[in-house]
């Protein structure tokens, strides 16, 4: 029998060992690999040199791709905030008897395969898709609109994927607000709008922050959505990583690119963690 004080560590050991072997060691290994030398014959030779970093860092193309990725992710996040906050507010404050059902419905698409939810947008936005068919049918347009395979459709797909995350985060934090505070503000003479601005909004900021960080990080790391819904000129960083590793088998470059994405997102998460707590994010996953 395991002694009582070691018991938690005993119970945790399978989880920690798999985490160390399957996550921490591999990520450290990318770091090591990024210094290796790529020989002319395609062999990778163990070395310690900064050639890969200098090549990638000196190429404005990669920085452009990183900027584009972050731009699209930021637009997605802002749309999710603007649409998600009012929706969460409505869900938190409405008086439906079956609020659980409303929340359940919101998360139903969540269970449906990511790739199906993504390609569904091809059916909706394509040349002979739903939107164009309807608009052509009622005669508003006489030529199909180009809604697909551009930044617009990528943002649509990302918003579609991230919006429930945003809504649930804001909902949890709105739901936790003591309603007496709002009543007190009203009694003390605040208008409804002032009450919202001075009491409700500040108290729900942790939820909004958690939802936004989650939206941004998940969007910036996404691969399938830009790949399926993006056009030829859509630049998404994870696509470059896939190209380098799977298509070109250029592993040293691939590792530098992976680390670039990981580090830049890590900085964003760290800055966020400096001001807000990450535990808010994890909590929403358990809902």
């Amino acid at each position, binding site marked *: 029998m395991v002694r009582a004080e070691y018991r938690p560590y005993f119970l945790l050991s399978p989880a920690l060992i798999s985490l160390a072997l399957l996550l921490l060691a591999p990520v450290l290994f990318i770091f090591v690999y990024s210094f290796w030398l790529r020989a002319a014959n395609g062999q990778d030779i163990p070395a310690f040199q900064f050639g890969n970093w200098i090549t990638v860092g000196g190429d404005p193309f990669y920085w452009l791709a990183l900027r584009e990725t972050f731009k699209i992710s930021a637009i997605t996040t802002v749309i999710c905030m603007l649409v998600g906050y009012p929706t969460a507010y409505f869900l938190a404050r409405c008086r439906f008897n079956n609020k659980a059902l409303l929340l359940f419905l919101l998360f139903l698409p969540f269970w449906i*395969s990511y790739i199906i939810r993504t390609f569904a947008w091809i059916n909706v936005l394509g040349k002979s898709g739903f939107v164009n068919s309807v608009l052509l049918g009622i005669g508003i347009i006489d030529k199909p609109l180009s809604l697909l395979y551009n930044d617009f459709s990528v943002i649509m797909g990302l918003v579609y994927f991230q919006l429930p995350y945003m809504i649930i985060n804001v909902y949890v934090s709105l739901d936790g607000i003591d309603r007496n505070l709002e009543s007190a503000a009203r009694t003390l003479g605040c208008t409804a709008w002032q009450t919202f601005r001075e009491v409700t909004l500040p108290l729900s900021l942790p939820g909004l922050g958690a939802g936004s960080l989650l939206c941004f990080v998940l969007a910036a*790391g996404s691969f399938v959505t830009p790949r399926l819904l993006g056009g030829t000129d859509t630049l998404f960083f994870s696509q470059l990583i896939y190209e380098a590793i799977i298509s070109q088998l250029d592993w040293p470059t691939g590792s530098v690119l992976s680390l670039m994405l990981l580090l830049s997102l890590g900085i964003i998460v760290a800055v966020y963690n400096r001001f807000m707590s990450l535990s808010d994010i994890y909590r929403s996953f358990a809902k």
Partner: protein
Amino acid sequence: MSADRPDLGWNGLQLLTLCVYIFMFAPIIVVVLLAFNSARTGSFPMEGFSFVWFGKLFENASIMDAFQTSLVLAVTSSFLATAIGVMAAIALIRYSFKGKAVINNLLSLPLLMPEVVLGVALLMFLKFLEQPRSYMLLLLGHTILSLPYVVLVVQARLVGMRQHYEEAAMSLGANRLQTFFAVTLPLMAPAVLGGFLFAATLSFDNITATLFWKKPGIETVPTKIFAMLRTSISPEINALGAVMIVITVALPLVGGFVVRRFAKGK
């Protein structure tokens, strides 16, 4: 409308929420609708109602293979993730020990890590160990991907569980192991089942990391769809999508029902 509700145009909010729900469901409905379209193009206009694409689906051996691979992978990886995750969740909820906060954060780490990076990392590490891409890589990869979710979901369910029953069993003479199997495990069953279903869904859904890890020639359902989409949207994809939608929506519904029945039986 009551006075304690800020008057921000409640009707506007209601309308927006309705639009969000339409936005969430419209694409799914479109896929299911098109699955029954008899036209050969897999897009609008609807020409007629037909089951023909579902029949084609079941005749397509490569899709059936992918289905089998996905299913086996989902069951095995979520079995592993649940076993490991439940142990960790018990430790985190039931004990206080040194380094708990750090371990908690560590276990949640994969949640915020871009899947592409995780995919690259594990693939490179295996190459370094001179292991070929294999089913094992997919199994271990999917396990580590769903582990943090299992830990969180099971933890959330365990928080509410009191220890009285276990203490009673122990004081009546059951040893620790007997107590665990006769009392703790049955009480935890809904939490364990919940974690398992969550992990299975995640594994069945996973595409990004799977694209890095799979051996050429082996396809799971999502990667198969991904490969099929390269050419064009065939009506078969819509039919496959419709089948998957029914399965993935039915699974949590049945799971939720079972869990509720469990809870009522107590």
